[in-house]
């Protein structure tokens, strides 16, 4: 037994295999415009955008302990900014999407300063108030159609790319790109120094504070970055829909309830959880959606049962059984089997 027999590593064979498999799947998905039908591409775009929203909500609730039921504020804000910047600002849609993300961060700063005064569950309802303020404010803007909303003018849609199939491919790639961007950002952030600080805060806020971590600032940064990326995803969502109204843009069911169910069912506090949750959510939706309201009630019951019986979700069950981590965040000690031992 010698200390030099051991090394500390982050990766594992499973993670390397997952990375290789992930790369192959990603290449296949990038090539989708050449093999998938129009309807499939639309469905996959929607799936990628939900994946982005779920990963972001998971970063806030699962890692930063910021449970928000008001992320629809930024989805709707991003959507409205896309419309406003292209219609009145004359920006190219892609430029408008990027600017929408930046503006989302900007507006999140005062919102965070206010609602960070509320603790725990009251913070959650505070985020909802912010979303309501956004909804009611945009309903007052008559230039954007007031309460009934407006459509994206044909000229702007056409400026995205020439030809219908080119436009559809581009908007598909943007959705895929946003999901990849969000997951990569969350992964790299959690592996960084700040990510470690965040995990420490999640595990024990008091202990983290005593080690010199600035809790407020770390959570604030997470909230603002999440708001920026959520606004970006929101702009993309409404680029797909081509029509926006206050009720659709700031819908608590569409942009928060579903996202929470995805994360809870998949496994909160893991990067893999939202991915699994999104796949389960779309599978359920495609098979049970005809049931309408019953489907939503089933989803609610499933989420409650998962929260009570398996609080780490489906991925938590898999991880407990097989000790897998496809996105390696922690460190593990590995023993080398050197020649003289054997």
């Amino acid at each position, binding site marked *: 037994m010698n200390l030099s027999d051991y090394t500390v590593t982050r990766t594992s064979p499973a993670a390397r295999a997952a990375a290789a498999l992930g790369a192959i799947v990603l290449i296949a998905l990038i090539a989708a415009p050449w093999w998938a039908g129009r309807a499939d591409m639309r469905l996959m775009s929607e799936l990628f955008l939900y994946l982005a929203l779920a990963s972001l909500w998971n970063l806030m609730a699962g890692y930063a302990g910021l449970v928000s039921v008001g992320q629809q504020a930024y989805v709707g804000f991003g959507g409205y900014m896309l419309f406003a910047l292209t219609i009145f600002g004359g920006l190219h849609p892609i430029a408008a999407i990027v600017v929408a993300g930046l503006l989302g961060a900007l507006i999140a700063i005062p919102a965070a300063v206010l609602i960070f005064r509320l603790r*725990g569950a009251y913070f*959650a309802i505070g985020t909802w108030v912010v979303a309501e303020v956004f909804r*009611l404010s945009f309903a007052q803007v008559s230039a954007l159609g007031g309460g009934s909303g407006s459509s994206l003018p044909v000229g702007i849609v056409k400026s995205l790319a020439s030809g219908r199939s080119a436009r559809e491919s581009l908007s598909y790639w943007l959705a895929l790109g946003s999901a990849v961007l969000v997951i990569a950002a969350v992964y790299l952030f959690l592996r960084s120094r700040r990510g470690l600080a965040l995990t420490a805060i999640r595990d024990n806020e008091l202990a983290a504070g005593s080690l010199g971590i600035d809790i407020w600032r770390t959570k604030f940064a997470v909230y603002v970055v999440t708001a920026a990326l959520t606004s970006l995803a929101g702009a993309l969502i409404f680029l797909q829909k081509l029509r926006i109204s206050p009720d659709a843009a700031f819908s608590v069911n569409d942009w928060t309830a579903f996202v929470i169910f995805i994360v809870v069912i998949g496994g909160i506090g893991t990067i893999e959880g939202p991915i699994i949750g999104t796949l389960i959510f779309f599978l359920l939706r495609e098979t049970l959606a005809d049931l309408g309201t019953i489907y939503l009630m089933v*989803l609610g019951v499933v989420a409650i049962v998962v*929260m*009570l019986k398996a*609080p780490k979700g489906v991925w938590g069950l898999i991880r407990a059984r097989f000790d897998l981590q496809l996105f390696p965040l922690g460190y593990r000690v590995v023993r080398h089997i050197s020649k003289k031992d054997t």
Partner: protein
Amino acid sequence: MEWLNALVQGTLLGGLYALFAAGLSLIFGVMRLVNIAHGDLIVLAAYLGLTVTSAIGLHPVVAMVLVVPAMAMIGYALQRGLLNQTLGDDLLPPLLVTFGLSVILQNGLLEVYSADPQKLSAPVLETASLPLGPITVGVLPVLTFAIAVAVIWGLQWTFYKTALGRAFRAVSDNQDIAQLMGLNKRHIFGLAMALALAVTAVAGILLGLRTSFDPASGGGRLIFGFEAVIIGGLGNLWGTLAGGVILGVAQTIGAKIDPGWQVLSGHIAFLVILAIRPQGLFPRMSG
């Protein structure tokens, strides 16, 4: 004079918001639970009132005799059967379970009663009014405000003058030591939720008499109640009444300026108070 009118109407509206908030405040005080489904339970009570009035033909105010105990029983069962399992140091389970409950309730109501807006009708009460000096006030808003004051007085009395209230305060202070003194905290929590939903039932019926409601109107009611609690300060029921009144006045004055601004100006008043006095106006405990 119009402004005085807005002030009085807003104050009376505040009584209804205080009733939305009282149940929320009570369960937070006893078990630190924030119930996201609170608004949907208010709407459920309004629908129960609708069923009772249309099935038996009772006057909505009299229907409370049935709806209040029914909601109290639902509350006790909900707490013992589901919500007690979520309580603990972790914030996430109660929040997400009540959120799931909210979605289930909304869609269940949609399934049973459809999305059409409904209203409880009480032909004489709805339109009756009283001259009050230079202005006229509706009998229903005055009755609502009087009920709100009576309910809050009753809750206050229960909390500080009865054995049940002593048990509530004991589990609120320290659950483990209360257990050692022979209190069953699961039962006490059940009773607290029963009392909270009894108040919610009153609020739901009065809501249904005042405006139309549909299965989706729960979220808005939760937010109004929550704002009243935070404005008034945590753990102070009379403060909650004051918070409801401030919210109601902000809304009627906003509506006076521009009808589209009614709800928005209530939210803005809330955010302003959060900015200058985050602990609320009359706090009794820290969040």
